[in-house]
């Protein structure tokens, strides 16, 4: 019998408190390698806090996080972060560096020099024209910037991608296109992806597995199909009801 690979991410009895606020309560779950998991919840539900314990931008109050079967505290902090691609809503492109320099910075930190062809390859992955390589971030549109953000997260050949509301600030058309693109990359590169979003429709359309968070707890852990079939309990169903109602109303109009 072959040994199962360890889960890409595992939370064990994880708690995070900010003074009297209990942001994450007793979360224990595992995310298998190759999964695309969406973490959905309203603002303040604790989903971003949970996500950021993975690359230790936030340290938990209690419990452990394992990445690749190993406690995140056993990694040198920088080594841990360098093996995790991180994409977030405000993108954080370095305004003093060109697009190519932004993308190449991660490998440069580790002492590697990115071949020029590799930058073009990464730009291709996120559907960007090679001409943007020499531009400064300020000269790009919001959608282009987040595409660069994704390319930058992938430059270090990370196998684990964590995303915090990655498409939250984009217009609906760009948002849809980039979401699909990321899902394609996930499949093609064999990534494990954990994405925080407040948009249930996005979660249902992109993920294999949807976690719903409410007041710091995981209240549902279902497949998109299961959620649409009514599983997951009332908090999850309230969230699913939104796109469902929208779809009905659109159908009535059309």
């Amino acid at each position, binding site marked *: 019998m072959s040994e199962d690979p360890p889960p890409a991410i595992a939370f064990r009895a994880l708690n995070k408190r900010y003074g009297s606020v209990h942001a994450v309560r007793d979360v224990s779950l595992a995310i298998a390698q190759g999964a695309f998991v969406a973490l959905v919840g309203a603002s303040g539900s604790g989903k971003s806090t949970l996500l950021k314990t993975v690359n230790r931008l936030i340290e938990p109050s209690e419990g452990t996080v394992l990445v690749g079967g190993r406690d995140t505290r056993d990694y040198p902090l920088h080594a*841990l972060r360098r093996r995790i691609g991180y994409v977030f809503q*405000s*993108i*954080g492109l*370095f305004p003093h560096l060109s697009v190519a320099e932004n993308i190449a*910075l991660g490998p440069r930190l580790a002492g590697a020099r990115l071949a020029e062809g590799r930058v073009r390859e990464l730009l291709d992955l996120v559907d960007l024209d090679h001409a943007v390589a020499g531009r400064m971030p300020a000269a790009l549109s919001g959608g282009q910037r987040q595409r660069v953000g994704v390319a*930058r997260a992938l430059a270090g050949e990370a196998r684990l991608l964590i995303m915090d509301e990655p498409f939250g600030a984009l217009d609906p058309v760009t948002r849809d296109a980039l979401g699909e693109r990321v899902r394609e990359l996930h499949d093609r590169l064999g990534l494990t992806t954990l994405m925080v979003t407040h948009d249930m429709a996005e979660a249902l359309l992109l993920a294999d597995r949807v976690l719903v968070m409410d007041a710091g707890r995981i209240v549902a852990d279902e497949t998109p199909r299961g959620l649409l079939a009514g599983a997951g309990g009332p908090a999850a169903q309230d969230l699913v009801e939104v796109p469902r109602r929208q779809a009905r109303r659109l159908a009535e109009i059309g």
Partner: protein
Amino acid sequence: MDAFLAALFALGDALTAHVLLSAAAITAGILTALPLAVWASRNETVARVSLGFASLVQTIPALALLALFFPVLLSLRAVFGEGLPTLGFLPALLALALYALLPILRNAVTAQANLDAGVIEAADGMGMTFAQRLRLVEAPLAAPYIMAGIRTAAVWTIGAATLATTIGQKSLGDPIFAGLQTQNWALVLAGCVASAGLALFADLLLGMVERGFRERRKILWLGGIVAAILGIAAAFVVQFGGQRDDAVVIGAKTFSEQYILARLIGHRLERAGFAVEYRDGLGSAVAHSAAASGAVDVYVDYTGTIWANQMKRTDNPGREAMYEGIVQWERETGGPRMLGRLGFENAYGFAMRQDRARELGVASLADLARVAPRLTMGGDPEFFERPEWTGVRDEYGLRFADLRTFAPTFMYNALRSGEADVISAYTSDGRIAADNLVILSDPEGTLPGYDAVLMLSPEAAGNERLTAALRPLLGSISVEAMRAANYAVDREEDKLGFDAAARQLAGE
């Protein structure tokens, strides 16, 4: 115009000293401010305390800050030994560096506080170490703001460095202070133009660097930095290229007589084969301590000044007893040695315009007390703090309507224009005769004697060749001769320079 140009072109030494002092102070300011700013960006308390301290320093007048370093360094000698300089370059550097701290620190801290939070999150998220984040992200993004702070600091420092003259550091303040003393406006103007020009030039270069950082144009910022470094290096070469450190240093306080006597001494020593250097514009206490420490080798002081200021005596035992008392006291306390009297007295006297004195019927201090409540008294900046003033005031019961402080030269103008009715004049001043002034008599003998005496550092006093060269000056200067020499440089028309006046005084 010719006098102005001549004065301007004679500023080479002062200019190079000014450039080096300012550059050193700004560099020290940068080296202190930047690590502090990095620390402050990680620690709220450090940010508050360091910015608070820098702002507090900024509220101290530059002149006072410079002066304050003298006692500070003096007390630090307990730690660092007697070799620690208390005057000249070191205290000027420290005070100006403190002054330069605020704008650099404030801009650096503000720049870091205003960095886009997303950029910092990205830097951390991608696994930058502390040093990588600082070098690759924070420093380049904060650079234009920090550069703007350095620019401000440079302009302030270059301006404030003119005040370093008062603590014995050569700077572009030398011509300004000397010119103010003697109402030689060409000299003042030359000093101001040179220091303003230097400030503008530094601002231009640093502005270029700032723009280079902002627009990410390497040629601009690199060019600016290289030009600034070349300028400083040139000043360094000029300053230290042909320096002789065996020169006899002659000190002078902030008034014309002191400048003239310093030249008189200098000419004598040069003829005797010594190289000489002048430290002009020293504060009174500063000059005395400088001679005690050997920072200055020779200067002229006045018995009454030492008696009251250094010995803190308020009694008045008479001229001879005072002289003997000082000789003994200096020997006991390791102060400068007194070689002897020059022959004249430059005492404080209460002077009035002759017409005004006659009109009010005032001939003595006792008469003055009667009309004082209607009059304004003008004094030099230290006069109203001195025991002579409190002594006379209490002895005669002087109560003036108003007390005003003037730079010595302006005191006489104030008397002429009627802004002051009585001033604390100096008895050797040339303007007493020239302005038709009367010195009020002192029937109670309250005002102490002020014999001009030649003071030597303990080391210089042991140099027989030096003392032999100076000895002929003792007893050789009458008060009339001194008045004439003072007037020659202080008068409005046909002024003599200090060198010329010194030659005239020497009878050449």
